[in-house]
Structures are given as structure tokens and as C-alpha cells.
């Protein structure tokens, strides 16, 4: 698992260790018709929803969402998968299915959603902080492996954008789960000053076919046919290079995007960045013989500014001890470990890539897709 240490694997005191079964929940809300306006009004009146139209979570639809083949078909629907702060709502498979239906998910995606919710409970995600901060951070869900094609996720052109039901609705389902179960409604749970568009939906897929290196889960030590990564961050910050065949020039652009002083990562040296390469940039870099480790090390050495610049901008900081020892004229890295620079390939044709800064006090988690 990405960046995890032994302590972070210990869930003894954490919200992920709750082997309980919730009481069998029944459909209890009454609608007079199938009119989407009535459903929307009901949700608005209860402070639920994201403001967009919803699919009514009838018993039939929820049962269909739960009733996929294999292992999940026999998994207890009312087992508590997680308890999600700040509301400490109990997330059962059935409740996850309810929110998947509301979001418009196709049947079959529930294991991806369940696995993402499991990932959200890992201590290093710091879900309570992610939800409660004034920063616009939001969980990005990345789908890897055979689930991408099997469930119809788009890992290619426009992977961050609209047009693919799986990307759009699964990302939205995660958001609805956080709104409804975790209690992340704007104002009462989510203090984000401005919010960001990805608070509606934020789900992409790894373009494994065009990844010239090992897949992302393999590099994280996760061996599974399908996996998910949850990484809490800002919207993507694009960078382009239409001309070069030199990896350094592409990576210097990534580094310059990472070096923005407006990022929350500036005062937190342990912060992660995802560098998501379009396949063409990845191919150019790999053709020159660069490994992912080479990329991480180059960006780590390049995304720097004089320590005095950071010190002028930030008085309240969380820096590693060795960074605190730097002299004002020393070049200080924006992040304190090359491993904090996470390399992924996604998207389609074109010479664009992006950087996703995190919020600082959060680390990504990669898990196998499981019931």
C-alpha cells in the first residue's frame, strides 16, 4: 500500500475496525410518484443530495445493485463496512448500494465502491480532516486492472471528464456516501471555503495498456486483478509540452506546476503529489530509458526553491527536521521524499499531463477490489 507504515496498518483504534452488523434497514421513505422533481424535493427538504437529479433507491434497484455475481452475492448486506466521520454514520453494503443507485451507477460497480470506502477509513487518509478543512480537497478514486474494462470505466481520452457512466456515477456515489453517511454537507460537515467542481464526482482509471512501466498497484506492492487507489487532492493542474523528446523538459514543467506557493503542500513537507502523465508524455519519457524512480528523483531535485522563499510565505509549517535545518539559500524541495511523488498514466492522445496536489495531511491508499 502506498506510503503505509506498520502503524498505519494497525486499525485497532481506528474506525475501520468495527466487525458489526447493522439492523436490517427497510425502505421507509414514501414517494407518491416516479416524478424526479418529487424525489429531488424530498432530498432537499432533508438536506440530502448534491443538487443534481437522483435515481430513486427503490428496494428492487438496491437489491439489483447488491446482487452481483461471485463473492459479493453472499456478502452480508447489512455488515458494517466502515463508520465514517465526522457524523460517524455506519456504512453497510446496502447503504452503499442505496447511494450507488441514487448516483445512477450501473449494476456491478459495488465492489469498487465498497473497496473505496474501506480505503477512506485508513488512518493515513485522515478522512475527518479531509472533510472538515477549509481547503477544497476531495477524494479522487482511481480504478486499476481488469475492473476498468469489465465495468466500463474510461481510462483513455477525457478520463477526468464527462461521457462515461462508470467514471461519472461511481465518483458521484463516493461523494453521496460522504455527504449522506459521513455527514459532509457544506457548512455543517464540509468547511471548504470555495469548494471545487470535483466535489460532485472525481473518478478516473489507470491506462494500464499504455503505461510503459509496471502498473500503479504493482508499484505499490498490491497484487490483484483489480485495485483502487484513493488519493485526496485538488482538481488537476494541467501542464503541456508539445515539442520535446527530452524527459527533463517535460518533468521540469511538472515540477514548476508543483512549485506553486499557493498550494497547501507548501507548508507541509510530507505532502503527496500525483503526477498523471498522458500516454504520449509517458511514452516519450520511457523511450529515453527513464524508470518511475528516475522520474520521482528528478522531480524531487527540481521542484525546489530557496528555503528563504518558503520561510517568507509560511510561518505555520510542518516540515521534516532535515528541512528545518536548511540554510536560507539552500534549495528546499516542495516535498520531503521522492516517494511522495506518485506516478500514474491516464488519458488519451495529446501532449497534456497534470499534477494533483494533495491537501498535505493525507496520504493515498491502494487496495485490491474486494467485497
Amino acid at each position, binding site marked *: 500500500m502506498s506510503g503505509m507504515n506498520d502503524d498505519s496498518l494497525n486499525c485497532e483504534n481506528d474506525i475501520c475496525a468495527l466487525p458489526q452488523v447493522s439492523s436490517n434497514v427497510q425502505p421507509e421513505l414514501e414517494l407518491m*410518484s416516479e416524478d424526479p422533481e418529487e424525489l429531488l424535493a424530498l432530498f432537499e427538504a432533508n438536506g440530502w443530495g448534491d443538487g443534481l437529479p437522483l435515481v430513486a433507491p427503490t428496494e428492487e434497484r438496491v437489491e439489483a445493485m447488491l446482487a452481483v455475481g461471485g463473492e459479493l452475492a453472499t456478502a452480508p448486506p447489512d455488515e458494517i463496512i466502515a463508520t465514517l466521520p465526522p457524523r460517524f454514520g455506519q456504512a453497510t453494503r446496502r447503504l452503499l448500494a442505496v447511494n450507488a443507485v441514487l448516483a445512477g451507477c450501473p449494476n456491478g460497480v459495488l465492489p469498487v465502491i465498497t473497496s473505496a470506502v474501506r480505503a477512506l477509513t485508513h488512518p493515513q487518509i485522515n478522512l475527518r480532516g479531509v472533510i472538515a478543512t477549509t481547503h477544497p480537497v476531495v477524494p479522487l478514486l482511481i480504478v486499476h486492472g481488469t475492473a476498468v474494462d469489465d465495468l466500463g470505466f474510461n481510462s483513455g481520452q477525457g478520463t477526468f471528464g464527462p461521457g462515461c457512466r462508470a467514471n461519472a456515477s461511481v465518483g458521484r456515489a463516493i461523494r453521496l456516501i460522504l455527504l449522506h453517511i459521513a455527514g459532509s454537507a457544506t457548512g455543517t460537515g464540509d468547511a471548504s471555503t470555495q469548494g471545487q467542481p470535483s466535489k460532485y464526482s472525481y473518478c478516473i482509471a489507470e491506462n494500464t495498456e499504455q503505461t510503459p512501466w509496471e502498473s500503479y498497484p504493482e508499484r505499490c506492492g498490491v497484487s490483484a486483478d483489480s485495485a483502487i487507489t484513493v488519493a485526496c487532492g485538488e482538481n488537476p493542474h494541467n501542464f503541456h509540452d508539445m515539442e520535446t523528446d527530452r524527459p527533463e523538459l517535460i518533468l521540469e514543467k511538472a515540477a514548476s506546476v508543483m512549485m506553486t506557493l499557493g498550494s497547501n503542500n507548501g507548508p507541509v513537507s510530507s505532502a503527496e503529489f500525483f503526477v498523471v502523465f498522458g500516454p504520449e508524455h509517458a511514452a516519450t519519457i520511457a523511450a529515453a530509458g527513464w524508470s518511475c524512480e528516475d522520474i520521482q528523483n528528478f522531480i524531487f531535485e527540481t521542484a525546489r526553491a530557496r528555503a528563504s522563499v518558503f520561510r517568507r510565505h509560511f510561518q505555520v509549517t510542518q516540515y521534516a527536521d532535515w528541512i528545518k535545518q536548511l540554510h536560507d539559500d539552500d534549495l528546499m524541495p516542495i516535498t520531503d521524499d521522492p516517494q511522495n511523488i506518485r506516478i500514474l498514466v491516464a488519458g488519451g492522445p495529446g501532449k497534456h499531463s497534470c499534477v494533483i496536489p494533495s*491537501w498535505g495531511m493525507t496520504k493515498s491508499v491502494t487496495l485490491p477490489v474486494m467485497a
Partner: protein
Amino acid sequence: MKIYSPAGSVGRPVHGLAEAPKPLRQSRLVGLDNGKPGAALLIESAGQRIAQISGASWLGVRAKGSAATPVEDLLLSELVNDADCVITGTAD
């Protein structure tokens, strides 16, 4: 047509607010810096003023590790032991 509620049940009892403090005279007042810029200065100033007008003892400001994480267990137990009333802030 019946549908499910999307929110489900709550796994931990929600703690209500503590009983309203008695008059602060002779009580021990401590500040908790939430880690945001300027918070310590604001809380120190507010704490001193409240102590001055209420007759409480102002014991100064303690700081938690990060604005982004909950107060540490050790500090929480110190606050419970050392203070009758804690002044802190939220958000930025």
C-alpha cells in the same frame, strides 16, 4: 412507492454539549491553539481578558500538533486535568 433513506444510522453516540460552566471566578482557564495562523495570539488575548473580568486564573495557551488533526490524547487528558474551561477556535 417506498425508497431507502441514504444516510443510515450513526455508529457512535453523539456527545451533547457539556453542562454550561458555572461562574468562572476561581476557575482554571486554559487556551488551546488550533494551529491556525494568529490563533495563539487571539486566544491568549481573549483568555487574559476573560480571566481579568471574571476572576478566573489564566494558565496560558497549549498547542495541538496540527490544525489538520484532532487534539492528541495526551494533551486532551492534560486539559481535562488542568483546566475547568478551555478556550479554542475552529476553522481559519
